[in-house]
């Protein structure tokens, strides 16, 4: 499954979560340093949140 983090394409398995996508993108450390994850509508999402094909999330 392809998702986008900060507009960069990342591939994870279909049952994987936001946390997996962040690990894949090497961005989990940023969350430890108090950054948060948002969806394309500006809603914060939890690390165990389900992903769906083509979803766009942002770390800031």
């Amino acid at each position, binding site marked *: *499954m392809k998702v986008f983090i900060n507009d960069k394409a990342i*591939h*994870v*398995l*279909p*049952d*994987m979560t*936001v946390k*997996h*996508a962040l*690990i*894949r993108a*090497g961005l989990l450390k940023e*969350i*430890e*340093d*108090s*950054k948060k994850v948002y*969806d394309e*509508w500006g*809603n*914060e*999402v*939890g*690390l*165990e*949140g*389900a*992903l*769906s094909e083509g*979803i766009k999330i942002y770390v800031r």
Partner: protein
Amino acid sequence: MKRLSIALCYTLLFLFSLSFANGEQAEIRILHVNDFHGFAEPYKPFGSNERVGGIAYLAAKVEELRKEKPSFLLSAGDMIQGNNWANLFQGESVIELMNEMRFDAMVVGNHEFDFGPEVLKKRVSEANFPVLGANVEGLKILTPYIIKELRGAKIAIIGLVTEDVPISTHPRNIPGIKFSSPMDTVEKYVKELKNKTHMIVVLSHIGHPVDRILAEKVKGIDVIVGGHSHTKVTKPVKVGDTIIVQAWEYGRALGLLDLTLKDGKIVRFEGYLEETKPKIGKEDQKVLAIVEKYKQKMDAVLNREVGEADVDLDGERGNVRKKETNLGNFIADILKDVSKADVAIINGGGIRASIKKGEIRVKEIYTALPFDNYIVAIKLTGRQIREALEHGVSGIEEEEGRFPQVSGLTFKYSPFDKRGSRVREVLVAGRPIHLEKEYIVATHDFLAVGGDGYKAFGEAIKTSRDFSVIGGMMKGKKVVYSDSGRWLRDVVVEYIKEKGRVAPKAEGRIKEIR
């Protein structure tokens, strides 16, 4: 006097009912949670030092808000699995507190299936509220929808779960159970219910992005109360004519949606999320008593003996990060066996403690394997396996957690050579590895997505397209096993229970050479 009060209440309810039927306004409130995952106690989220959540605090807020308006309390799924407070009782603890909180309905989430169909049936039978699943076939205990009456308004609540359940839980958990398209299902029920009710609520466990698509495509849904994506929808959003809400995760927030109905239409809505902050003295005492009761039971379960070790099981930090250990071998062997893989590779850093010779207790396994990891098996070429092993031994000087513990293969390496050129003589099942041949490699989800820098698995996932469910298990071109509903530590507990006695050895799978 008491009889008079009861009579007065009935008269008022009758008048409310009558007034709504006569075209006057009715005000109702929906209180909602989702993706609780058994987080009964306050906790510190990853990256934060602040304690948040706590179901006893959330329950007290529910009671306070209920007094203001006629209300429903709804759950959008994934309640009974996740935290040890839930898992150690297969969700029984969660149903008990939901009964105490007087939930009106919940939809089954994908993780409600993780303990298997018999446990799910038992949990549903224990619930004092209906458990919905309109797009689930083959599980009669679930109800497609309910119709509730509040202030004279007839409200249909339809439950939908993601049709991806078969890729997020093991096939043994869903025998004979089918999941149909949420879109088609809800379309059918909206047609059936729109003339019988004043309002249609979809209790959805399909994720916020899909909720938005549902609202765009299916007309006639008034409200979607969502879950699955753990989205913090701070204010209700409107897509077409549908209001969409979702209340984050783990009981960190209680969702509130106030609706004013007139002539069968919503004429006004407003809502917000009430974040749950643990403040001593603000707990619901009855819910707190349930939380405490199961906390004490947890101690008993964690102290339970599951088997016996004939030898010390070595999980010392200074060992698992620089050499083969018997505990590393034991865990890697379990991954390989369970997923029927050719080999297994895990990171030594994932093992956090040793287990002493003698009785093995649940808590010792939980301490040794504290991370919420699950087993994944992926096809890698011999070349990719070799690259993974090179990566594994590339941080040995710093005792990096990436050091591999393996099963089904042996290899030699020289820590004196430069990083990236240390591995020698890799054998799979005693034969030299074929660099171009594909092998099934078991690991866990953390390494599978490239955790600890293991790129080989991630590359395989990237090339694994067209996932489908074959024989009840998610399969892709490269992925052959994934069981996200069962933590590795629980698999190890079950394995030891089954074996009774264990005596793994460090047997020369990884040899250091000069």
